């Protein structure tokens, strides 16, 4: 798997109508690595992810993929390089798992082209990689939240892109399923070298799973780098306005943020 795909945000300004959300932000996504975008609610991290996925055009600046402006490339061609899993995708009523995963093949199919063997193989591989091959004929409506999230990730895998963008892939999941999903993404990154960029709420999970942390604050990159360097009590205070203590996680040695609330702290 090539690691050559370079996704770069070049001084992008993003706004919804008149409301400025991201202000001249520059970011080079580390190829072949896992990047976690963290920040307070409303800081613009999801908006940034939408721009990286070409869902939102910058008011100024540009998002560049391999040296070419993202918006100037045919959208279907981009969809073969960049996959996106939004925060709350919709599963059509009654759809079965294999069908939903198969919809990830859309960018690989022409207007008249029939379903091909490559499509079949991609779907089978995606079902295997996410461990849901035995659910292939089940209706998505019947699945639990954790299983459903695996189905969506399988759909993104069937798209066979070198870059995968995920907006809070662990929301609405219990802690076991959060770990399960992040382990799955780490497997994918190790096995195929897929570049992963995800928005995460949980700083501790971000520190544990990401190679790179991008801390976004008020529409700008506040800090960027390895979790061990970036995630400090100072950063948590500046970005989240939260008083905390950061220790080394006894399991991994990565930073572990212990928030200091107003109660129960001696």
């Amino acid at each position, binding site marked *: 798997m090539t690691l050559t795909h370079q996704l770069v945000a070049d001084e992008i300004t993003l706004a919804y109508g008149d409301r400025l959300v991201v202000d001249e932000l520059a970011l080079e996504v580390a190829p072949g690595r896992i990047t976690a975008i963290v920040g307070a609610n409303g800081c613009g991290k999801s908006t940034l992810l939408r721009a990286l996925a070409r869902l939102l055009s910058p008011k100024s600046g540009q998002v560049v993929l391999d040296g070419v402006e993202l918006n100037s490339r045919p959208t279907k061609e981009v969809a073969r390089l960049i996959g*996106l899993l939004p925060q709350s995708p919709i599963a059509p009523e009654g759809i079965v798992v294999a069908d939903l995963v198969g919809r990830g093949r859309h960018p690989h199919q022409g207007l008249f082209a029939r379903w091909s063997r490559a499509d079949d193989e991609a779907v089978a591989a995606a079902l295997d990689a996410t461990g849901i091959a035995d659910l292939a004929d089940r209706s998505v409506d019947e699945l639990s939240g954790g299983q459903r999230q695996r189905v969506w990730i399988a759909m993104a895998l069937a798209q066979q892109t070198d870059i995968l963008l995920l907006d809070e892939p662990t929301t609405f999941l219990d802690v076991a399923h959060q770990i399960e999903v992040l382990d799955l993404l780490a497997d994918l990154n190790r096995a195929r070298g897929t570049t992963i960029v995800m928005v995460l709420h949980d700083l501790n999970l971000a520190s544990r799973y990401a190679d790179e942390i991008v801390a976004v604050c008020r529409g700008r990159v506040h800090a960027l780098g390895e979790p061990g360097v970036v995630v400090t009590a100072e950063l948590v205070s500046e970005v989240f306005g939260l008083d905390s203590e950061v220790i080394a996680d006894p399991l991994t040695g990565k930073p572990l943020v212990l928030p200091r609330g107003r109660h129960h702290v001696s």
Partner: protein
Amino acid sequence: MSTARLAWVGAGAGCLVLLALASVAFGNREISLHELIAALAGDANGVGQAAVAARVPRTVLALLVGAALALSGATMQAVTRNPLADPGILGVSSGAALAVVIGIAFFGLSDPYGYIGVATLGAAVAAVFVYAVGSLGRGGATPLKLALAGAATSAALSSLVSAVLLPRVDILTTFQFWQIGGVGGAEWDRIGVVAPFLLAGAVIVVLSGRGLNTLALGDDLAAGLGTQVRRTRLIAALGAVLLCGAATAVAGPIGFVGLVIPHLCRLVVGSDQRWLLPFTAIAGAGLLVAADVLGRVVARPEEIEVGIVTALIGAPFFIWIVRRQKVRAL
């Protein structure tokens, strides 16, 4: 799964052939099998044969209109991601109707091409208007807001139709049959005029199927999969409006086919538009032919117009859909 779907499509097509034969055989005049065969062989000498000869174009028109309305409804449901979408409920049929009435009353419209053009234009204007009104306020075009905007618009447009017609006794009778919705007056040359428009609409809609499949996953995901969301919506909607406009121009506003059929078909072949759309066309054609036969048989020697029969079938079904919990999702 594909084999099962294929079997359903085959079974649907088989039923359709039987219904079409029934539609030629049964009518408000009883005829013998002998007369039927003679007539189908091209002999139109007897009264029975003449009746059969008149029923053939009628059957063909019912097939075309039923398929068109069902396809139009299925597409509108996919485009708006709204289970309540239907040309009748969204006011699109009424838009077509009002446009035709105005054309007849004030501009002496009589040319069949004029009918189709005006009806399609009226359908498009009504569709845009209802979508705009339904999108106002928080949350955008939710299913219920769209349905309410459509119902209100539909009622308003129908009153306008009456307002235009009432002082014009001269055109009232010609218009009345059209207004109720029927395929009784079918003639080959009118079918020939409308068929290319229906075909064009059907091709547009069916080719949009794959794009509509991604739209069903939400706009963000569709865009991520490389679908041009706006363009796909616009093209598919255009096909749906063309289908509804042309069908309404030739048969008058016929309700509920576009609502009922896609829901039933989804239960059978699932939500994949590439299967759903063709199956919907078959089932819609079947329903309209069946409704037409029923209307001819139950009230002998009178006829009940097909638009009334579909409304009787469709209204309870509409209530059933609204009462289902998943009405917000599709």
